[in-house]
């Protein structure tokens, strides 16, 4: 029953352009919590910092400031050596996240052995089969023997999910887990994630740019714009009653089949250049929160 508490997390990157150096603040004082059995969606466009947050949480990068606390069931900080037993990630690209050289069994067996979940080849193999069955990949024996290129995208993503859960992870960072899958398969994979969450009381961070699945799949939504959270609240509230300009822009921009043939009439009504991400609307408290301005400039908006 692991939970995660992120406080004032920031990440700066130094960009070198010729002789000049610029600091890019990819993530600016982001705070949120992940609790067992709940899904938090992190919504934003590319360049908003959501992938950076994933990298910070999985310790692929070090934060420039702020803290990430991973607390076990007794509210104690998890030891560094066990960090990866508690927190794992599902990558976006099912075609790139599995090594084409190795079999599926290898992909699942390695995390088991690294984190000493099993002892000996026989036990490991049995666990591998169990895990494959859990993510509905059957017949498990045949799938385990295959190589990634012999599976479809949806199957690979299920393997990736199984791999993430192999160490016994309680916190799952799902970085756009279905955006590269065929449309008709996305449903199945997201429902699978939901089932696994219910069964294991996982804390899930669902990173996406798709507002619709964010709403239906998560309990809470955080809207990220240029590294800062500009709106947070229960999913339905944020989508049906957006307060911040940026959230409104996103909601309007998302394709809505109800507006058949109305493309030209949908005025966006929001001036992109004037979106202010120094304040954030918190639906839980029902009020605006101010982030004081910093010196570091963020890059200009793309059209």
């Amino acid at each position, binding site marked *: 029953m692991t939970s995660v508490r992120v406080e004032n997390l920031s990440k700066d990157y130094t960009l070198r352009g010729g002789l000049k150096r610029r600091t890019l603040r990819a993530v600016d004082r982001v705070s949120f919590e992940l609790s067992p059995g709940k899904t938090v969606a992190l919504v934003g466009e590319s360049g908003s910092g959501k992938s950076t947050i994933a990298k910070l949480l999985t310790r692929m990068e070090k934060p420039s400031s702020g803290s990430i606390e991973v607390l076990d069931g007794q509210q104690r900080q998890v030891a560094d050596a066990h960090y990866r037993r508690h927190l794992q990630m599902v990558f976006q690209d099912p075609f790139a996240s599995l090594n084409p050289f190795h079999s599926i069994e290898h992909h699942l067996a390695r995390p088991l052995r690294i984190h000493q979940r099993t002892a000996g080849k026989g036990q490991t193999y049995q666990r591998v089969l169990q895990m494959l069955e859990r993510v509905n990949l059957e017949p498990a024996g045949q799938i385990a023997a295959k190589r990634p290129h012999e599976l479809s995208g949806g199957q690979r993503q299920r393997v990736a999910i199984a791999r993430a859960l192999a160490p016994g992870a309680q916190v799952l960072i799902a970085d756009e887990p279905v955006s590269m899958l065929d449309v008709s*398969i996305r449903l199945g994979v997201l429902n699978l994630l939901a089932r696994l969450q219910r069964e294991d009381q996982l804390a899930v961070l669902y990173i996406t740019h798709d507002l*619709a699945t964010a709403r239906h799949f998560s309990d809470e939504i955080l809207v990220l714009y240029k590294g800062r959270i500009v709106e947070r609240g229960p999913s339905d509230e944020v989508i049906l009653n957006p307060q911040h300009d940026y959230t409104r822009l996103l909601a309007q921009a998302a394709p809505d089949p109800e507006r*058949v043939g109305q*493309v030209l009439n949908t005025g966006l009504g929001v001036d992109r250049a004037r979106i202010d991400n120094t304040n954030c609307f918190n639906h839980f408290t029902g009020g605006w929160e101010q982030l004081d301005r910093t010196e570091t400039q963020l890059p200009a908006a793309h059209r």
Partner: protein
Amino acid sequence: MSTISPERLEAGATGKPPVLSVRGLSVVYESQNPVTAVKNASFELGRGEILGLAGESGCGKTTLAYAINRLHQPPARISSGQVLFHDSSGQELDLLGLGESQLRDFRWQKLSMVFQGAMNALNPVRSIGAQLDDTLRAHAPGMTRAARRERSAQVLTRVGVDPGRLRSFPHELSGGMRQRVMIAMAMLLEPQVMIMDEPTTALDVVVQRDILREIVRLREELDFAVIFITHDLPLLLEISDRIAVMLRGEIVELDQAATLYRQAAHPYTRKLLASFPSLRGDRGAFVRGGTADDPQEQS
């Protein structure tokens, strides 16, 4: 199993005569086990109509687009069918029978294409202006240099890009702007038909909406027909007049957008529609609280 009745094949949405007729087109990939990528595709594209072509990966929509353009490469081979282009001058062209030089004249003048991943189709070491210029020189050899420059500037302004950017290089532009440049490039000679293969897929949703509005606005201004290929069905529902749904090489449904949304006839269309949860509506098949989940994908 196809649910197209003969009446529906006719271009109904705009009430205008057809500009492109595809009849019984089949494309085969001659590999170890020959694969029929497109099976007997038939449809008509009305003048000034936006026809959406929806389907998932591997359904054959890109192959179909390439075949219409005769851009397909071996091992792809058109095994049967007919593609007729009804020029605005009244002439009727059999696209599959054109010779090389006739095809070159035809391409870009009458029909142009915006390719998938178009944002990265620009040559990184040449300026935008140079590339637009190249296209004009290839397909409209009669134009003078001044006329070409003027046309390039004009076409950029049309898509909402500052003509001063003619001297910029592709890496200096954002993704959205590069996509606009590609659309501008396709519009250079004011073709009657534009085929767009996933033009907005790699773009953010806000930029995507800008581009879509641009396309629809240009269509209103210049009255060209568009075949818009994508897997994003809700997007098609918003901008298309009619939508064709492809599954495993066949067009399984072809209907007016509104009708398709409310009364999809084919089970696959309904499945596709169900895969897109409505932003503001109910959650449909996305079940978080219940126990339903797909036992195994069917491929």
